[in-house]
């Protein structure tokens, strides 16, 4: 038994697991900033998209079109390599953020998730029944109160499943930030692979951690759905 435990402790996969685990906080840090920021901005963008101001709506529509039509990798490279090559930016205050791969990753991930999230929320806002808005209006709600009390709560809880999907895609998307030399889990797994020439062991360790992270995310979304959709609970 002890021999067996020792053999596990000496195995490459066990050692790699803890090495990759040390990159977990970097992955989570990326998510902790870009997800809340993306959520708020996506809501604002969705409201702008459905607004009656044509110019605003058109601008946001074309922003969404461009971001959804190009791979995330292009966006990350454009911000990390592209913006860094402009002299004007290198000399401005923006350079304090853009010289760090971490902040480039955060900016790219946020830009990406805002486009997808705005489209999801737009669907939610447009699917609200007119009668609910009208009853709010007849109660004398102002525009802001209507938004805060009726439109947003109903829209958000309606799109929770699809927004949950987007959140999981974001967890997976953080792995691309490793290509800008930021050392999160995929980056560390890649480094281990280069050192030990044992690709399977290194990447399986990372894969298990990503699966775990996504599992937590699914549970979190399930809890939110349960909490905010009480009328859909099976047994209450």
């Amino acid at each position, binding site marked *: 038994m002890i021999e067996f435990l020792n053999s596990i402790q000496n195995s490459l996969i066990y050692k790699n697991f803890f090495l990759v685990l040390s990159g977990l906080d970097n992955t989570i840090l990326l998510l902790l900033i870009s997800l809340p920021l993306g959520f708020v901005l996506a809501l604002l963008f969705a409201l702008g998209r459905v607004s009656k101001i044509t110019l605003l709506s058109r601008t946001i529509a074309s922003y969404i079109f*461009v971001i*959804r*039509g*190009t*791979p*995330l*990798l*292009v*966006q990350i*490279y*454009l911000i990390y*390599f*592209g*913006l*860094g*090559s*402009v*002299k004007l930016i290198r000399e401005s205050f923006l350079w304090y953020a853009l010289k760090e791969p971490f902040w480039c990753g955060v900016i790219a991930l946020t830009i990406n998730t805002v486009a997808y999230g705005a489209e999801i929320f737009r669907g939610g806002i447009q699917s609200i029944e007119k009668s609910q808005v009208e009853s709010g209006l007849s109660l004398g709600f102002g525009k802001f109160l209507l938004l805060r009390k009726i439109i947003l709560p109903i829209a958000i809880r309606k799109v929770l499943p699809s927004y949950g999907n987007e959140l*999981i895609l974001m*967890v*997976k*998307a*953080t*792995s*691309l930030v*490793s*290509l800008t030399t930021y050392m999160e889990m*995929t980056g560390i*797994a*890649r480094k281990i*692979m280069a050192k030990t020439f044992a*690709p*399977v062991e290194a*990447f*399986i360790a*990372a*894969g298990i951690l*990503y*699966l775990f992270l*996504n*599992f937590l995310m699914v549970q979190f979304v399930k809890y939110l759905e349960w909490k905010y959709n009480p009328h859909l609970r099976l047994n209450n």
Partner: protein
Amino acid sequence: MFKFDKLVFGDAGWGDEFLIATLMTLLVSILSMGLGLFLAIITVWAKIIQNRITRFIANFYTTVIRGVPELLVIYLIFFGGNAVVMSIAKVFGYNKYIELNALTIATIAIAVISATYSSEVLRASYLAISKGQIEAARALGMNKFSIFFKVISPQVIRHALPGIGNVWQITLKDTSLISVTGLVEIMRQSRISSNVEHSPLTFLITAAILYLCLTTISGRVFKTLEVNYSKGFST
């Protein structure tokens, strides 16, 4: 800052290189979409026949691949694929070194990823076919083969087309990750060109525009196909 004059065709610019790279992206996308659909059909089949083992394997495959970043899957197949192929070849008594070329690895890696998405789409559209139709076909004395080709697949294609269109867009964008394996597609070409010309902004914007064109055009194609396949049905 911008060197868009470097995008001319011929020796002076990168135009022809980008054209070839775009074709390579399209080739990888089409090949892996095809292979992915084939894998997806097998996965769906494993899920719907009443067999616990095949269903477990299929569920395990789709859950794991969809829960792990695409980049990780590509790394795993790129760095681990050769070893797997060589160990399989050893079983058949072939002991020499085998190296898969980049295109093969790229196609397999993207196909493995896109098959998980396609399988969900296909399974949903298979379940949308009413059981009565299959029973009716059986009552007419059709064998399994002709039930599949004459009753099931035409309807699955119609139901699945919008979903398959989405998977195609995802697959097309996933091919950009293949650049890490050294296959020269749009992404890789833009990195090479920007390293030579010291102007990343130019070539990355070119790459973005090319991807945008590809996704827009293929979106149109899928819309036309959808209209074609839902003739006689009000959508």
